[in-house]
């Protein structure tokens, strides 16, 4: 087969960097076009719309800094930021220790732990809408599980009180994602060289000591990764909160993404909504970069081998 001489066109090209590159570039074009139209143009567009006035149907008129002024002077913005960070912080605080401990447990190689991992995965398959609807029914003060079982503690107006509603959002988020983060930690723990534990055992270190001196430090990057996922992901809990509480009661769970949707698509104020979208992008980028700095790995991580 290989004895056939290659066509002359191809012979004169040096092959060190992967051969004839001129012929392949077009293959990237369809993806590039799609991404430009629906990714890059909207990103520029949202910035442009933040300087405009638009009700979502009619004409788009330039409005200068009006939208920015109205949003920045509106007490709704600090509140939405506060709610966003509250949900972010609480769900991080709740999920991280639990996922870490469960992940360490799951890292064992017994057969039943594999099956545990299989069952653990199920919450991730549910859509946020299905999940929110389920918990809304489950926690209903009149017809939910609590009143059905007659357990006083479970029978509260979970979604009707501000503090409880925030707690419920955090719980539902954790319900869906703790298993996922446990699996990440499981992967991380399995990468720790066994020799380290053997050495520690010879030195007489107990289970606790091993956990704090070997497992935890060795999982540093896994913790950062998992935290990044939690923190940045929490900015985009739109579907869940929208269906579960619609931002309520009052504005108790109106996070940034929800605030944007309500201003834009419900109140018809696309300008101010775009301002919030821009803030959302900036907060997300800031958090992602900050967490990466924390890991001390600079830019070698994401762009590695790009």
């Amino acid at each position, binding site marked *: 087969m290989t004895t056939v001489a290659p066509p002359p066109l191809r012979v004169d090209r040096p092959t060190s960097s992967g051969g004839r590159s001129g012929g392949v570039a077009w293959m990237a074009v369809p993806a590039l076009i799609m991404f430009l139209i629906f990714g890059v143009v909207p990103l520029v567009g949202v910035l442009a719309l933040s300087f405009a006035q638009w009700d979502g149907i009619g004409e788009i008129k330039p409005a200068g800094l009006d939208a920015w002024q109205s949003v920045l002077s509106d007490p709704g913005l600090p509140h939405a930021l506060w709610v966003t960070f509250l949900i972010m912080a609480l769900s991080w605080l709740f999920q991280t220790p639990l996922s870490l*401990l*469960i992940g360490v447990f799951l890292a064992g190689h017994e057969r039943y732990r594999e099956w545990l991992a*299989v069952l653990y995965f199920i919450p991730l398959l549910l859509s946020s809408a299905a999940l929110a609807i389920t918990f809304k029914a489950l926690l209903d003060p009149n017809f939910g599980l609590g009143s059905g*079982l007659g357990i006083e503690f479970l029978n509260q107006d979970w979604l009707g009180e501000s503090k409880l509603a925030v707690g419920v959002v955090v719980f539902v988020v954790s319900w869906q994602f703790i298993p996922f983060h446990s699996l990440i930690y499981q992967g991380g723990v399995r990468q720790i060289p066994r020799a380290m534990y053997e050495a520690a055992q010879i030195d007489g270190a107990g289970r606790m000591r091993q956990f704090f001196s070997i497992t935890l430090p060795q999982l540093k990057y896994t913790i950062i990764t998992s935290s990044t996922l939690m923190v940045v992901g929490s900015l985009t809990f739109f579907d869940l909160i929208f269906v579960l509480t619609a931002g309520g009661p009052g504005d108790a769970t109106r996070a940034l993404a929800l605030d944007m949707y309500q201003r834009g698509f419900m109140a018809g104020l696309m300008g101010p909504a*775009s301002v919030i979208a821009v803030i959302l992008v900036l907060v997300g980028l800031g958090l992602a970069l900050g967490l990466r700095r924390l890991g001390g790995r600079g830019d070698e991580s994401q762009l590695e081998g790009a």
Partner: protein
Amino acid sequence: MTTLTTGARTADAQQQQEAPRRRGRRGMARNWIGGTLGWLWLLIVLVPIYWIVITSFKTQSTYFVENPLVPAKDPTLENYRLVLEAGFVRYFMNSVIITIGAVVPAVAISFMAAYAIVRGSGKRFLRWTNSLFLMGLAIPLQAVIIPVYLIIIKLKMYDTLGAIILPSIAFAIPLSVLVLTNFIRDVPKELFESMRMDGATEWGTLLHLAFPLTRPALVTVTIYHGLTIWNGFLLPLVLIQSPDNRPLPLALWNFQGQYGTNFPAILASVVLTTLPILVMYAVGRRQLLSGLTAGFGK
């Protein structure tokens, strides 16, 4: 989950790959705390799921009087009939069309782009394209939904299934390209060389060499995006108006609004919309688990 997040995980998993793999950690004291928590959390995960399923077989009247955690004495399919009559077959088909219509082209063009990026790594155009996709990992869909809505209106596609398909394709590209380039890069250069010697075109090399060798990654990416798009809520919420064009999550939400406190019926709709994914999970579990926990790190 945002796409950025998975990108970050990739880097981490790469880091981890460098550490030597070791199996088994026997000979250690039992991990009581982790074990208790692990089983307890399993209970917390399973109880609501169990409750959804058994409640969906109860009648609205017995639901209020029976113990909520005991299955119905005489299970009824009435709720499921109600859900199906509410047009769920149509919504199901809409979801199927949207998911297949978005995932197949998204993975195909991402694969082509990934191939080009790896094979033509010297080209400035391709390096630039690749950096653009990497940046794209950080753009959350929520943040650009308003301009996307505007573009869809301008394209006269508002309230069509295509309105959901096109942005879904675009937002699947960055992550797919990232994962697929990492895989194609692992294909030995000599194989590409010998294909070239045989006079194969780039297109032929892509189909007959790169495609079979990166199939695991393609499956992973397909499943991941399939799941994301199947469960997507924001795009339909913003871009679909007429009931006939609703995909399942949006239909679910509307159904819930319509049936208020008829919990058995609402939960039957939850079961019905989740069932297809559960079946697929049961079939492709191994692919999905290994894909999502390790595959993206490849």
